[in-house]
Each structure stands twice: as structure tokens, then as C-alpha cells.
């Protein structure tokens, strides 16, 4: 059965490739730092299960040290000039989109095949890993197709991958680091503490105030944790179930579903949701690392108000 470990081997190889590509960029004075960073990450993917928890902890400190001391950075080498890219795009035309669409297409077809056909029962792929395995397959197919069609130089994919990787830099591992912070938060009891604080300030008697507190609690907790999933069980235990559902008789399906969506409004506003908010800023080479969040706040706040209204009206008056 294909499981996550197959992908870890593949991902380790890609990160090792980033290390090689980084070293090949002689215009970059930080190339050794870059190479060390990607090599450590490759090591984590290949050998993480054999290092032990403490070994992995030390590996994390090394990664953080390299990034925190600014030993990594982007180079200035461009493999092709703007003119060459323009001419290449004129020569290949819209067919250039085909390899780019292979990855989403593989995800699409694969998801359908493994959810709605007898393939589902064959246990070919670990169900928990299906989306990532399909991503891996898509990447491999797209790489093969583009090599056969475009015939790039042998190490072009390595060079281009590391060019992008180094322009994103530390942001690439930030989501994983935040997930580990979540594990520490849980071990130190942060969630229960916040739940206890929120639970202690419940207003008596007003359903609307309780609804607002529930939604704002979801938002604030999500902003802190970067993830509505961490907030939901805590807020459900503190307000959602005892006050809104049991004491005030709210519709549990609305309280549950729309409460989570109120939390998603918080996700739009927090740098802690790095993979949605910080990583794209790096990926699109924005000057302001909070540029994406700034663009989202004016959508998030009215949407939060709407969600509070839905909670109140549909939860208690329909």
C-alpha cells in the first residue's frame, strides 16, 4: 500500500535537489546557508523517523538557527531573460498550460477514482495519504511530460525549483513549525486555559451576546492558533454546547457549522495561518509580508458579521 512514507522519500529527494541547485548558483553569497537548510530538511524527510524526538528537536533548532541568523537568501541568477521567455511563450503558445494543468487534473481524476469507483476498496493507497499521493503522481507526470516535450538541460528542473525555493525561503517550513507550536500549546494546556477564561465571562440571559461571544471567541482563538480546528473543540466546550445548545436551545447543526465558519474569518486575518497568508506573500514576491492579510481583512470583517447574524437567526429563530 502506498502511504505517506513514499512521499517523504520523494519530498526528501526534491529538497536535496534544492540544496544542489542552491550550490550551483554562484551569484548567491548565501548559497552554503541555503544548501545546509535544504539538506537538513531533506534529512528530516528521509531519516526523521530514526532520529528520535530529541534528535528531531535538535534538527529543528539547527533549521531555525540557519534561518534566524539570516544565513539563507535568494540569488540574482536568472536562467532565461525576459526576452527569451517571451519568445519561448510565443513559440509554444497555449500548450504551455497543459503540463501546468496535469497536476490539478491528476488530483481531480484521482479523487473521483478513489472515492466513487471500485478502486476505493483495493487499498492501493492509504486513505489518509490519497491527496498527497495524487499530488506526487501529478508532479512526476508533469515533470516527465515537460522533459519529453521541452527537452530542457539536464539540471534545469533542479535549478528552477531551487530558484523558487530560495525566493520563498524560511516561509516554506513555517506552517510545519506552527503545527509543532500547536503540539507544545496543547502539551502546556493553553487551550483549556483560554476555554476557562472565555467560559468565565459569559453574559447572563442575552442570546445575542452569547452568540457574539462564541463567534468572537472562535475568531480570536483562531487568530492565536492559526487554525480554526484547534479553536472549535475548545469553544464548543466553553460556550457552544453548554450555553447556546443546552441552555438557550439553539440548533446544534447551525451552532457547529457556522461557528466553524466564523473561525475561518479569523484564519483570513492571522499571520499564524502561514500557509494561507504568509507563504503566498513570499511566493508572489510581495514587499509587505502581511500584504495578503491586508487584502483579506475587509472581506473577513463583514463576513464575520454575516456569520453572527446567520448563527443568531438560523440558530434560534428558524
Amino acid at each position, binding site marked *: 500500500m502506498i502511504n505517506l512514507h513514499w512521499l517523504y522519500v520523494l*519530498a526528501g529527494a526534491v529538497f536535496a535537489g534544492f540544496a544542489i541547485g542552491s550550490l550551483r548558483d554562484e551569484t548567491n553569497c548565501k548559497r552554503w546557508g541555503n544548501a545546509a537548510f535544504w539538506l537538513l530538511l531533506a534529512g*528530516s*524527510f528521509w531519516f*526523521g523517523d530514526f532520529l528520535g*524526538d*530529541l*534528535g*528531531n*528537536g535538535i534538527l*529543528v*533548532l539547527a533549521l531555525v538557527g540557519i*534561518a534566524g541568523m539570516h544565513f539563507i537568501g535568494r540569488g540574482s541568477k536568472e536562467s532565461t531573460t525576459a526576452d527569451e*521567455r517571451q519568445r519561448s*511563450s*510565443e513559440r509554444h503558445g497555449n500548450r*504551455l*498550460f497543459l503540463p501546468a494543468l496535469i497536476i490539478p487534473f491528476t488530483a481531480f481524476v484521482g479523487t473521483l477514482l478513489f472515492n466513487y469507483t471500485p478502486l476505493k476498496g483495493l487499498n492501493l493507497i492509504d486513505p489518509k495519504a490519497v*491527496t498527497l499521493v495524487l499530488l*506526487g503522481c501529478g*508532479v512526476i507526470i508533469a*515533470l516527465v511530460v515537460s522533459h519529453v516535450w521541452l527537452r530542457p538541460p539536464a539540471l534545469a528542473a*533542479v535549478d*528552477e525549483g531551487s530558484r523558487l525555493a530560495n525566493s520563498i525561503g*524560511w*516561509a516554506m517550513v513555517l*506552517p*510545519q*513549525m506552527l*503545527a509543532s507550536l500547536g*503540539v*507544545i500549546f496543547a*502539551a*502546556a494546556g*493553553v487551550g483549556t486555559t483560554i476555554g*476557562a477564561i472565555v467560559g468565565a465571562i459569559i453574559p447572563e440571559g442575552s442570546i445575542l451576546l452569547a452568540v457574539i461571544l462564541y463567534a468572537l471567541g472562535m475568531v480570536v482563538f483562531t487568530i492565536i492558533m492559526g487554525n480554526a480546528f484547534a479553536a472549535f*473543540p475548545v469553544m*464548543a466546550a466553553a460556550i457552544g*454546547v453548554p450555553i447556546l445548545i443546552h441552555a438557550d436551545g439553539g440548533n446544534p*447543526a*447551525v451552532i*457547529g*457549522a*457556522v461557528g466553524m465558519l466564523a473561525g*475561518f474569518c479569523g484564519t483570513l486575518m492571522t499571520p*499564524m495561518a502561514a*500557509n494561507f497568508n*504568509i507563504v*503566498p*506573500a513570499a*511566493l*508572489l514576491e*510581495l514587499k*509587505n509580508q502581511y500584504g*495578503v492579510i491586508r*487584502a483579506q481583512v*475587509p*472581506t473577513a470583517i*463583514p463576513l464575520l458579521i454575516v*456569520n453572527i447574524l*446567520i448563527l443568531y437567526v438560523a440558530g434560534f429563530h428558524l
Partner: protein
Amino acid sequence: MINYWPLLGIALVVIGFALRFNPLLVVASAAIVTGLLGHLPFLKVLATLGHGFNENRYVTIIWIILPVVGLLERYGLQEQARTLIGSIRGATAGRLLIVYLAIRQILSALGLTTVAGHPQTVRPLVAPMAIAAAEKQHGELDGETSERVKAMSAATDNVGLFFGEDIFLAIASILLIQGSLASFGIQLTPFQLSVWAIPSAICAFLIHGTRLLLLDRRLGRRK
């Protein structure tokens, strides 16, 4: 007695992010401080951090896509995305992003959340197309405006994903809601929950769509 000290770790994150220290450094420091204040010994904190990092490696797998995106960019993918949008009459940045928002919401509602995303579609396709359309409306873009159009492209992807995915029955967040409420003895089916994601999804489309139309107006005005 509840121990409130670990909350200092949260304060550390807020301050560190606000002062724009390297986020990896901020998060790692906050993790260690929180653990120590939660009465875990240092080596235990380090081991917990390492364990968490190792268990969450799957979060970082998405980046195996970079060699493909980089390779196609080398052959002019972004340029072609611009050419394509330039050839469509009436294409504006706002309209393009509204169409993308609708597609992203619908695909997510069908459970196809990984079909699109920042590395898969926004960087190679959506953002360059939005920039090209904005240039058609506005002429040459100054740094601030092109930054704004790119940021709105990323924002549109997020809004489409967040306010589409919960309509799908088997998505993690719906299962989490179901599981959390079940632990209090409240039994719901995923269908009962996901139906209630629809009103918010429609409102998200209307609110964000309106903002995209306003973006068009601003782009048109500054010409």
C-alpha cells in the same frame, strides 16, 4: 488552579510577529518558552517540538511542485498567461478573479480542494493573468497597485477555499465538528452540518465579489 503563565508564549508570538523578527525564530522561541512555563523540562520541550515537527512533515510536501512550476516559468508560462488574458476582450482583473472565486468555491464544495492553490494555480496562472488584465485597464502599474492586485489574487484563492470546502460532506472540518459535538452526546450527520455552510458561502461570494468589482473601478479610475 489553572496555570496562566503559558499564555505568555502567545504574547511572545504577537510581539515577535509585530516587530517582524524572523518568524521561524519567533515560533521556536515561543514554543520553548510556552513549554517551560507549562512546567515541562527543557529536554522534554525540545523532544515535543521535534516530535511535532516530524509528525507534521506532510504539511511541507506541497513544495515538491516547485520544480514543475519553475521549469514551465523558464519556458514562458507566466508570459503566456498574460498573452491569453490580453486576447480576451472585456477581461478585467476583478472579473477574472470573480470567475476564479466561483470556480474555486465550486471545486472545493465538491471536495476537490487540492486542485487549485497558491503554488499550483495562483503563482503560475492567476496572479500573472490578473496583473495583465489590470495593465489593460490601467496602463503601467505602479509598485503599490501591482502588489495590491497580486495580494487580491492570493486572497481570492483563500476565500474561495475556506467558504467552499465545508459544503463538502467528507472534509476534515465537518468531521471535526461532528466528532466534537458527538463527544457531548449530540449526534448529527455530516449532511446536516454541510447544508449550513451554504448561506455563508453565498455571502462570502457576494462580499468578496463586490470588493473585486470595486477593485476594477479603482483600476479604471487611475488611468
